[in-house]
């Protein structure tokens, strides 16, 4: 317990440190002292204040919140489906969200009525797509009830969505196509302060609910029947978990694109660190680790030295895949937990 508390404190400190780095590093490097002055509003340089407050702060906050949210949704899914491969990008949830966004971004603008801004619409569409796929997965889970089949179903749903998206792509305008492709690479940038609450509020709500789920998720480690015998409403827990992961993954995908790997990999790395799967420890550790990894990846994305920003998904996969492989192949049995 003391060991896990140590990890929580260390990861908390690391996420703050990464966030400060995120504010300082970029095309225009800014010294930490200047960053601090810009944050508290005593900087004399208007440009620095703008860069720190309007550009980098929203980006760092977006990365932190999205990382924490993806990690939490991955962890909840891995326990609920009793499957170590579950995660927003594996079960087709990101694909569903992508399809929703593609429909909004790629269909001719004349199809949409003016009063609703496209951006708001694409968020709703991403949420609807994510929840739609989740409901499908749940129904399938009811019928087949085994993890491998479920993953195959998730893959098939992903293929279906990609197929529809590519048909849409061929028929769309070059301008809208570029917008969609950029969104699909994933990015924590481009967020501004006024829009930030639309991401932060649903994700924080999701993270709170994820903490409420800690006790029933622990019981579910024993399997559904044991959980039921311990007084857990399994069906209610499942539904709540699915709504939570849907809102988390859907909102984050809408704003940041289908960010790969973080949702799947973070809980595994967290388990390897704290060597437990009790959710009271694993949930906060995964969230903090997710925030650290996301901010870290974002730093790599826009590190000085090259002209354009790297695609976020390339970075998360380049960092994430070797880590997961190392965790799986390092021969430590504790890392190869087959259930969450």
């Amino acid at each position, binding site marked *: 317990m003391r060991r896990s508390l140590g990890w929580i404190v260390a990861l908390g400190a690391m996420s703050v440190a990464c966030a400060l780095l995120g504010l300082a590093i970029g095309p225009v490097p800014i010294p930490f002292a200047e960053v601090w002055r810009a944050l508290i509003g005593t900087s004399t340089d208007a440009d620095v204040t703008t860069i720190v407050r309007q550009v980098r702060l929203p980006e760092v906050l977006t990365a932190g919140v999205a990382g924490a949210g993806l990690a939490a949704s991955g962890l909840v899914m891995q326990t609920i489906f009793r499957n170590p491969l579950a995660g927003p990008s594996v079960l087709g949830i990101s694909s569903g969200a992508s399809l929703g966004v593609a429909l909004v971004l790629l269909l001719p603008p004349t199809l949409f009525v003016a009063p609703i801004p496209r951006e708001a619409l694409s968020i709703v569409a991403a949420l609807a797509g994510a929840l739609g796929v989740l409901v499908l997965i749940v129904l399938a889970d009811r019928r087949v009830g085994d993890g491998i089949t479920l993953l195959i179903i998730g893959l098939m749903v992903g293929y279906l969505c990609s197929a529809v998206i590519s048909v849409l792509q061929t028929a769309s305008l070059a301008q809208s196509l570029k917008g969609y492709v950029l969104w699909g690479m994933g990015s924590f940038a481009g967020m501004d302060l006024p829009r930030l609450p639309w991401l932060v509020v649903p994700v924080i709500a999701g993270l709170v609910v994820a903490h409420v789920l800690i006790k029933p998720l622990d019981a579910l480690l024993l*399997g559904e029947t044991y959980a039921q015998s311990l007084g857990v409403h399994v069906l209610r827990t499942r539904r709540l978990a699915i709504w939570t992961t849907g809102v988390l993954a859907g909102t984050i995908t809408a704003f940041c694109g289908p960010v790969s790997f973080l949702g799947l990999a973070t809980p595994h790395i967290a388990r390897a660190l704290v060597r437990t799967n009790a959710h009271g420890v694993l949930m906060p550790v995964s969230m903090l680790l997710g925030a650290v990894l996301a901010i870290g990846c974002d730093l790599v994305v826009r590190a000085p030295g090259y002209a354009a920003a790297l695609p976020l998904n390339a970075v998360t996969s380049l960092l994430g895949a070797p880590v997961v492989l190392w965790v799986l192949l390092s021969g430590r049995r504790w890392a190869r937990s087959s259930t969450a």
Partner: protein
Amino acid sequence: MSAMLHTEDLTIGHGHQAVCAGIDLQVRTGELVALLGVNGIGKSTLLRTLAGLHAPLAGRVTVQGADLATRSARDRARLVSIVLTGRPDTGLLTVDALVALGRQPWTGPWGRLSAADRAVVDAVMERTGTTALRTRALRDLSDGECQQVMVARALVQATPVVLLDEPTAHLDLPNRVRIVRLLRTVVREDAKAVLFSTHDVQLALDLCDRIVLMRRLERPWSGTPDEAIASGALEQAFAGSGIRFDRASGTHRFLP
């Protein structure tokens, strides 16, 4: 003595398919009862129905006089605990954390253990001989150790009724005896009512207070081990399967 666990004209089954009907069962406080019957006769279904995990097709289950169906899931979990067959895949979970999960019906919304909860867990682990296993994972244990841990988890739940589905399956003889003797001690010392299904007829005859026999197309038979042999009920339940009961010695032999 009053019945702790009681069923009235209970019909059990899945969906609309009844497995067994007209079950009038009583398990009294301080009684260790074995549930015998051939494979597929409905022992597991009966145990799950008694735990409130399956809805009865008809009739009712009462614990301490309260109808189980009218109680909340949490209340049910405070009245009846169950040990299922098989070893759950709990990954990295330590034995200590696993056993502590049994306190869930008594803990608050975050599942945090109070000092009192912790004391219950420690006492039960000491008593079940699982203290030395506390930092191990379930998958690293032998079948015997695993069963002790699962029994400990149920006892930690501190319910007046404990149900166990084939707790002696896959165990060697000394471990089988150890588990049933542990159950006997618990029943006597804690005034619990314990019902477990088993295929160890001899163990049931020697160590249990009463035997319930599930029979095809008939209501379950219930009585003391002596009555089970003397009345020929046991012989009848396993009729035609090449087993002969010696009524004089209370033992059975297998026919070649």
